[in-house]
């Protein structure tokens, strides 16, 4: 074999080696391109799903927050309305207390009221011996009213009653503009069995009871019937 043939043979072998390497390199490059696309897609897709979930969660939180805010605002506005209603009711009772303070100005009318209050106390207590406590300024009226009430009780119930007006203890005085202490608009407190049974029949306590019991009626009179109320039992 001469040099030319040997060289040709060597070139053929060399080219074969290089061609094999090139083919292998091309195969690696093709695979690398595929891996590049799939890896990039895989990483992006995984993160994309996470991001979407994260922002969906955030949006839901905003919706919840909005509902909470709305609920808070609704409560706030309802409470402000209820507070004003309550203030108005307090205002009404203050006005009533002012008017109640003038009841004892008309002595004849007030004495009749006192007599009725004392008589009612006798009936409620249903005892033989009763003590009556009134205001100091009502002392004269009280004696007369007590006597009349006792007579009425005997006539209606048929029982005598041993009644005494307390000369040492008194109810607070009537309200005056220059006086800030405890006040009483009138009426009496009756007690029996040495103070163990008590019947509070002062005008103030009666007004309080009336207010408590008549609150639904008062609301209706002030603001009209409730539109949301369904049951009237």
């Amino acid at each position, binding site marked *: 074999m001469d*040099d030319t043939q*040997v060289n040709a043979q*060597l070139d053929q*072998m*060399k080219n074969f*080696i*290089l061609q094999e*390497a*090139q083919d*292998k*390199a*091309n195969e*690696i*490059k093709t695979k*690398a391109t595929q*891996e*590049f696309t799939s*890896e*990039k*897609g895989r*990483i*992006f897709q995984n*993160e994309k799903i996470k*991001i*979407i979930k994260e*922002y969906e969660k955030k*949006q839901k939180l*905003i*919706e919840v*927050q*909005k509902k909470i805010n*709305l609920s808070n*605002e*609704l409560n*706030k*506005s309802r409470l*402000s*309305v209820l507070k*004003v209603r309550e203030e*108005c009711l307090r*205002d*009404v009772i203050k006005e*009533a207390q002012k008017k*109640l303070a003038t*009841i004892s100005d008309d002595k004849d009318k007030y004495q009749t*009221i006192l007599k*009725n*209050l004392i*008589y*009612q106390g006798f009936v409620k207590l249903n005892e033989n011996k009763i003590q009556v406590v009134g205001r100091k300024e009502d002392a004269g009226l009280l004696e007369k009213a007590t006597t009349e009430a006792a007579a009425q009780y005997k006539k209606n119930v048929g029982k005598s009653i041993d009644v005494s007006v307390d000369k040492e203890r008194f109810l607070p005085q009537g309200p005056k503009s220059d006086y800030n202490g405890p006040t009483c608009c009138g009426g009496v407190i009756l007690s029996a069995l040495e103070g163990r049974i008590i019947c509070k029949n002062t*005008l103030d306590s009666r*007004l309080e009871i*009336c*207010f408590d019991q*008549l609150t639904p*009626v*008062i609301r209706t*009179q*002030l*603001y009209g019937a409730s539109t949301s109320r369904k049951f009237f039992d």
Partner: protein
Amino acid sequence: MSSEDGIKKLLDAERTAQKIVADARQDRVQKLKKAVEEAEKEIKEFREKKDKEYKEYESKYLGASSETASQLATNANKEIDTIRNETAANKQKVVDLLIKYAITCDN
């Protein structure tokens, strides 16, 4: 041509071939790194897009909340005015009713 030259020629070819394959492998590694980088870049862009959408949604949604709140406040104020007016109009009637009940005894 000596046999040594021939062997050298083949060894050179082998070395070149190895380099071609090694370079291809190196390119593959670089390409995978680039895939991660590009994916991260696209992720960043996607996150920014989502964040923008979210902020728009947030301002729209919470903006609507403040509108609702002011509407509620307006309604409450109207209702309060009505209550005050009705109280003023009907107060005397109620006071008279309370006094009547307070001083009347059903004997």
